[in-house]
């Protein structure tokens, strides 16, 4: 098995509004602590603003806002920096969880009843030992 498909199997887990989510590790550049955000007036609600990541400007996107969840009391959030073509996007999540290898047999289609704002970004769900992890479609997330 080559390295690439090995990496494809790895997912980065995080929590958001009490739910467990995951995105493929291959998209993730790094995970960083909360940063000073410069808000962009007149931008869409889910765009938190811009952060300076070692001299690169990164657009910070609040997944809570994007999925239509209540805004976090926001004492602490983490930023997952994701590569998007030539630019970087930071997804604000509540907490970072483990990176795990995925077992293809445990992947299932997302239930049709999934909530409105979230639905379009969900690829599949993954049955973990304790709970379900929602696998997000990063490409779609990057399109917003």
């Amino acid at each position, binding site marked *: 098995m080559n390295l690439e498909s090995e990496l494809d199997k790895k997912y980065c887990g995080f929590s958001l509004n009490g739910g467990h989510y995951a995105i493929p590790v291959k998209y993730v550049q790094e995970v960083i602590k909360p940063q*000073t955000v*410069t*808000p*962009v*007036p*007149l*931008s*869409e609600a889910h*765009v938190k*603003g*811009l*952060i*300076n990541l*070692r*001299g*690169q*400007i*990164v*657009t910070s*996107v609040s997944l809570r806002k994007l999925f239509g969840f209540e805004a976090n009391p926001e004492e602490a959030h983490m930023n997952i920096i994701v590569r*998007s*073509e030539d*630019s*970087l*996007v930071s997804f604000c999540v509540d907490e970072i969880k483990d990176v795990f290898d995925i077992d293809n047999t445990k992947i299932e289609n997302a239930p049709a009843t999934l909530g409105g704002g979230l639905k379009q970004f969900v690829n599949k769900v993954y049955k973990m030992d304790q709970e379900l992890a929602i696998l997000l479609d990063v490409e779609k997330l*990057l*399109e*917003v």
Partner: protein
Amino acid sequence: MSNELLQEFLIESFENLGSISERITRLESSPEDLELVNDIYRTLHTLKGSANLLNFPQIQAVAHASESVLDFVREGLMVVRPPLIDGLLRASDACLGMLQAIEQNGTEGNLDGADIALEILSIGERTLGGRGTALPSGRMLFHNTPEKNIGPIIYKEEDAEVKDEIFKVAGKNERLMEEDSKSSENIQTKSKDKAGPKREEVSMLDSSTKLNHNGAVTGQDGGHHAPKKTSENVSSVADSVVKVNVNLLDKIMNQVGELVLNRNQILQFANQHNNNDLQRLVQQLNLITSELQTDIMTTRMQPIGNVFSKFERTIRDLSRETGKKVRLNASGKETELDKTLLEAIKDPLTHIIRNSVDHGIESPSEREASGKTPEGTVEIKAYHESGQVMVEVTDNGRGLNKAKILQKAIEKGVISKEESETVSDERAFSLIFAPGFSTAEKVTNISGRGVGMDVVKTNIEKIGGSVEVSSRFGEGSKFKLKIPLTLAIVPALIIACGDENFAIPQNNLVELVRHDFSAEKDSKIERIHDSLFIRLREKIIPLFFMDKTLGLELSEGERSELNLVVLNAEGVTFALVVDDILNTEEIVVKPFGKSLKNQSVFAGATIMGDGKVALILDALGFFKHVSPNFEKMAQSKEEEPVDLSAQAAEFQENLLFKLKDGNRYCLPLSLVHRLEEFKASDLEMTGEQAIIKYDERPMPLINIEKNLGYDGHDEIIAPGRERFSCLVVKVKGQLYGLVVEEILDISVTEDVIDSSAVDRAGILGTIFVNSGVVSLIDPYELVGKSMSYRIEPETVVKELRGKKVLLVDDSSLYRKMEGEALEELGAEVVYGKNGQEGLERLRKSKFDLIITDIEMPVMDGYSFGKALREEFGANIPVLALSTRVSVVDIAKGKESGFDSHIEKFKKDEMIEKVIEMIGEKERA
């Protein structure tokens, strides 16, 4: 053939040939310069040798032929003449073309080297023809098929002389091959000698030397090309030059950028910790980093002379083509610009120069006729000014013809005829930058090829520059390009607003104004409905509060003064109120990610010294955001507007008055019955309605401010006033008093009523009066609004009862005014907005009388008259109303079928006429 060798060959040859055309052109002006001849000869010789080594026979043939001809010059058998120069230039072009083909697909391409070689040789032959000197190579022919690279040289004549030549050539080539293989390790160093930055490469030099195009390394003296320098001379400096890939440089730039930010953070950190050692180290780091940053930036800088040198050739070719005599003067060649920018201005600059020669410079005879020297000059000048590089292209040709430009602009629909009458020279000249504009009467292949100056403008603006043109008819024109020093770094003004800092590019900035409320007593800021304007030196500029517009945290407390930033974007000037003006800074523009691409208010972001991200305001985007009808407004000028209160400009008199909000308003004078002044004590109240006794009848008074919905004007008369002024208007047969603060003046305007800024009922639109904007009040609407109190109108004889009148007028105000008067007399009035609508109404029902305006969109009164007479005969009386009633107008009216033609706004006269005309018709 090894790929590396081929690459090396290409790089070297491109570099050598890069400057050859300039050298050849120079040779033309100084034909005696043997050193120059030798220099060109050497270049061609090297090319021939390498081409032979790598088996590119066509290049070899062309280079060989050129070399041979030059040999005659060297031996004094021939003098340099224009045909020779032409031939050499064509040859060098052909070689360049073939080299490009090799670079792209490995073969020399379709160019026929043999033809060119023959042509050059024939130049030599013609010159030497009579002398019978053996010109063996003149008989060379090439066997050429499209697929196959041409084989070795085939001789037509099999005589001994020629055979000798074959051997000579072969021998020479062998020697060359030897030479070349020997020196193959040296190629690298050699190419550095003459090599300038080409394609992806720039050279880095040690700090004592400056870069220049041909790679000829010179000291600070700015001496450009170094053809006269001996090769030893050059090679000594060459050791200090290394070629570096631009991509690598870019990467280093980025790294340094990160280092700078890191340094900033460390600086901040060090400031928080009072440690002397740390401070000292940080200071050192600070210095080194700054220096490193500057040095890296300079590696990308190249002298603008690189671009200028190409123009020698451009001008020469053009002047030969057009039969004009043109000399190029270039100065400021050493002015340095970022490499990317240099590339970007090359084409626009070429276009401007072509334009100057083609359109600007006259033919020699024409020049002499107007007392000029037969030879025209085109001058290119580059210099630094206020942090930008200026490039001026000046010609002493015929200059721009304003009348011709305007005529063309009207033809192309760039400008309206009315506009063209008042337009300034400056604005008229700038029209040449409008898309699709070209004043050349016939399309030449030089300029005027459809792509015009608009492309120049767009390209220059794309890199953050600007282009201006000034001209004196008959004396010449000047194009001035302003170009930022580097692409990514922009000088910007940093301002604070809300809790954030913003950067505004300096090139949008017009001025900074501090507006003091207390001192000026608010006199300079004007409010027109909900829009704010500021008066700046008699100009009215829209004003916006940045915090409010962008939904930022509003700054607290009353402002005693305002910080205004006046911006200009594509001709739109507006002022922005910001919290604080901080400083100017060179900022690095970083584009937005995808999720922010679709917003237009900001052009990007930048990282400030403290590591915080600041947004860069896009002035034009901002203006489009605050006035979304900006584009609509621009569009509606072209399209047929739907229903503005007055389409065609009509001259009218307005009564100017002031209301309690301190602003000026006006009312068409024709609607004003009388002006009166009353005592405040005579005012009576009936419920909510204020009444005053006027002409022995009660007259309702109207609080204009309240009816317009302005806050804080519940009192009809300001408390404490003893007397107040009233405009008495007659609406629906009833007199009303409009209470005003002060009656100012009567103004005569011919301005179109602009209804685009109307935000409430009761206001018809705005007009310009004495360079100020004034709102036009609609009394009908106001009266309608305050109909809480009704009085039976005085009884009038309903002389027109049962009569049906068609009233055609494009102005809703006059429709209303004239209509009311007719309805008062019991007539049934049907309205139309223009002649077309009038005809439609006529088709549907029968009328006793038609009243029409003259100036109307779609179909004017005259056409309407003619059309209705044709369709409905002569039975219906037609009355025309117009602001202009001259003998000519009346004659034209008669011709159009009008029965009568009277002056507009004279209500009583109109009524009289209507009654008379209807009576006549009934009698008939």
